[in-house]
């Protein structure tokens, strides 16, 4: 499961929040219910004590009299919700005036001196009551005990309303608190994860070549990570530079001795001079090829971009100067917005070799054009020279092969271009130019990061 950090944290915190607030709600609800019930019981108990106080047992008639006025006015007004009844031997001997016309349920008998509190439904199940029973006994004149059972009833609906309104407000507040906490948590998460998101955008900028490295001002927790990335970027860059410089130095130091050897053979006119010269030429090609191949920077993590038109214009102007005698026309059809997705050196190498080749072979016309096509940069160089026979095309693109030994640098130039192009994940094609009749060199460079 590849969930985002944000979603993980939000989900976990939400679940914990729901469980916690739910349990809190239940506990509060329960506690309130218990205490409300307790207060009902206590108030009913008070009523019974008041009734007992108002009761008078006549020892002669053996009758129980309730003195008026009754201890609670609600007992006098009909259907007030508070009722009282007195039983003797399971017969109702007295009923409060409030109970007129009601059939009240009866509680079970209890022992003298003890209490019984219960919740009971009426016989028609339409209403429910809290009922508190208490048994008391009086003696008649002969000392014979008479027991009476006092019962006070409180309509349940009033209690229910009270509990209901408490519940409504309790859960209402809890839901509001939940929503507030979730929102707060989302904001806190957003804020806390912001540095991580900016690392990501920072990395994108580095990738796109807009920045060299990540910023330094990150929180302690991820500074280790960002510094690690920066160190990595730097060391990779240093290592690449060192590698390229070492190779350039190596090739440089080999080439001058080769030039000396080569020049020496010319003047010595030895018998096997031609063969030696051939071998030196091979060595030169190997050095050239390996140097150019190794120094092709290729696409790196720092997505460098180089404007295409200025580089090609500079190469064409330079070659035009060298080949001024030939009177070659070389129109350039390139939009100045076009960018080459790589280092300037690589672009110089590719276009320089291709154009040098074109100038070598062309009679009067060369044409350079470039365009974008489906995330690919297409560079096309055509000439009106003899072209390259189809049978030799694969060969000149191979490393160090030459199609024509008499023209220096022909094969190696194209194979170097092919090598650089492949470092960029692109491809190179040789065909016949339809318009000019000579060779047509086409290179495709993908703009998106296809790492080799």
């Amino acid at each position, binding site marked *: 499961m590849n969930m985002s950090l944000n979603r993980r944290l939000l989900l976990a915190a939400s679940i914990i929040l729901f469980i916690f607030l739910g349990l809190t709600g239940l506990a509060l609800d329960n506690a309130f219910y218990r205490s409300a019930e307790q207060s009902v019981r206590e108030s009913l108990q008070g009523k019974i004590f008041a009734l007992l106080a108002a009761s008078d047992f006549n020892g002669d008639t053996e009758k129980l009299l309730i003195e008026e006025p009754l201890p609670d006015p609600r007992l006098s007004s009909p259907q007030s919700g508070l009722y009282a009844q007195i039983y003797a031997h399971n017969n109702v001997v007295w009923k409060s005036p409030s109970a007129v016309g009601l059939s009240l349920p009866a509680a079970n008998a209890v022992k003298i001196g003890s209490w019984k509190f219960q919740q009971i439904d009426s016989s028609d199940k339409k209403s429910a009551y809290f009922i508190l029973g208490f048994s008391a006994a009086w003696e008649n004149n002969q000392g014979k005990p008479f027991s009476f059972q006092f019962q006070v009833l409180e309509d349940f609906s009033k209690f229910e309303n009270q509990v209901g309104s408490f519940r409504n407000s309790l859960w209402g507040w809890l839901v509001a608190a939940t929503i507030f906490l979730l929102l707060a948590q989302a904001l806190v998460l957003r804020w806390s994860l912001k540095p991580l998101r900016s690392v990501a955008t920072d990395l994108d900028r580095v990738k796109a070549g807009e920045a060299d490295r990540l910023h330094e001002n990150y929180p302690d927790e991820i500074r280790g990570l960002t510094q690690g990335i920066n160190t990595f970027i730097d060391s990779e860059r240093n290592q690449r530079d060192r590698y390229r410089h070492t190779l*350039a130095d190596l*090739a*440089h130091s080999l*080439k*001058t001795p*080769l*030039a*000396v*050897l*080569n*020049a*020496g053979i*010319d*003047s010595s006119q030895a018998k096997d001079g031609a063969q030696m*010269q051939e071998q*030196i030429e091979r060595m*030169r090609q190997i050095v*050239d090829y390996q*140097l*150019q191949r190794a*120094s092709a920077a290729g696409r790196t993590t720092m997505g460098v971009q180089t404007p295409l038109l200025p580089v090609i214009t*500079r*190469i064409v*102007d*330079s070659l035009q*100067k*060298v080949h*001024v*005698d030939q009177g070659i026309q070389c129109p350039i059809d390139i939009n100045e917005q076009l960018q080459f997705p790589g280092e*300037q*050196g690589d672009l*110089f*190498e590719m*276009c*320089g*070799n291709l154009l040098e080749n074109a100038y070598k072979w062309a009679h009067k016309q060369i044409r350079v054009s470039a365009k974008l096509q489906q995330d690919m940069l297409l560079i096309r160089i055509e000439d009106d020279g003899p072209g390259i026979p189809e049978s030799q095309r694969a060969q000149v693109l191979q490393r160090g092969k030459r199609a024509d030994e008499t023209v*220096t*640098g022909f094969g190696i130039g194209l194979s170097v271009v092919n090598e650089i192009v492949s470092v960029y994940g692109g491809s190179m094609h040789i065909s016949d130019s339809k318009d000019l009749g000579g060779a047509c060199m086409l290179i495709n460079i993908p703009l998106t990061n296809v790492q080799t």
Partner: protein
Amino acid sequence: MRILLIEDEPALRQQLQAGLSDAGFIVECAEDGKEGLFQGQEYVFDLAVVDLGLPKMSGIEVIQSWRKQGKDFPILILTARDRWQEKVEGLEAGADDYMVKPFSQEELLARIRALLRRSSGWSQSQLNCGPIRLDMTAQAVSVNEQLVEMTAYEYRILEFLILHAGEVISKTKLTEHIYHQDFDRDSNVIEVLVGRLRKKIDPDNEYKPIETLRGRGYRFALSRDTEA
């Protein structure tokens, strides 16, 4: 023809100097950028061969300074690192052609001759002026298709005069271009050489190819054939 060679690698410099001298050029050498810059500023040259990777001052800076001072002799750059950017920078600085090390002497000579021709307006290596034909590659002169034997100095004088056909060339200038710097300029060797040259290419005094302008110098009087 006087060539300035700036190359820091002693072995290569000596070989190139020997090769170019054998080919009939007067070669002056410099082993670093500053010395080369000075020589190019102070003396007369027909062409410079400049290595780009030089100590003290880079080849590109040397070329830029010369061009800023209005020196317009052709420049051929030598580069050990065949990085295209460097070639382009050298050409933009004012060089006219480039050679990538290592190269063969023949190719270097061919490029130098082509540059010399180009700078004097010729586009072929055979210079034709009426009956006289001078082949810069073979360093051979023929009159009416008859090969004329001549010494290196005679050839140099004729080549220089033909390349600058129509222009008045003073004795001093001729001396500068065909001899080393330390040549004794008071001698009348030039007059002797020109006299011999006239006898060789025009024994019957028929075409009068080399005019003497008293007090001013010499002029090659035959006009160029229109080139094919």
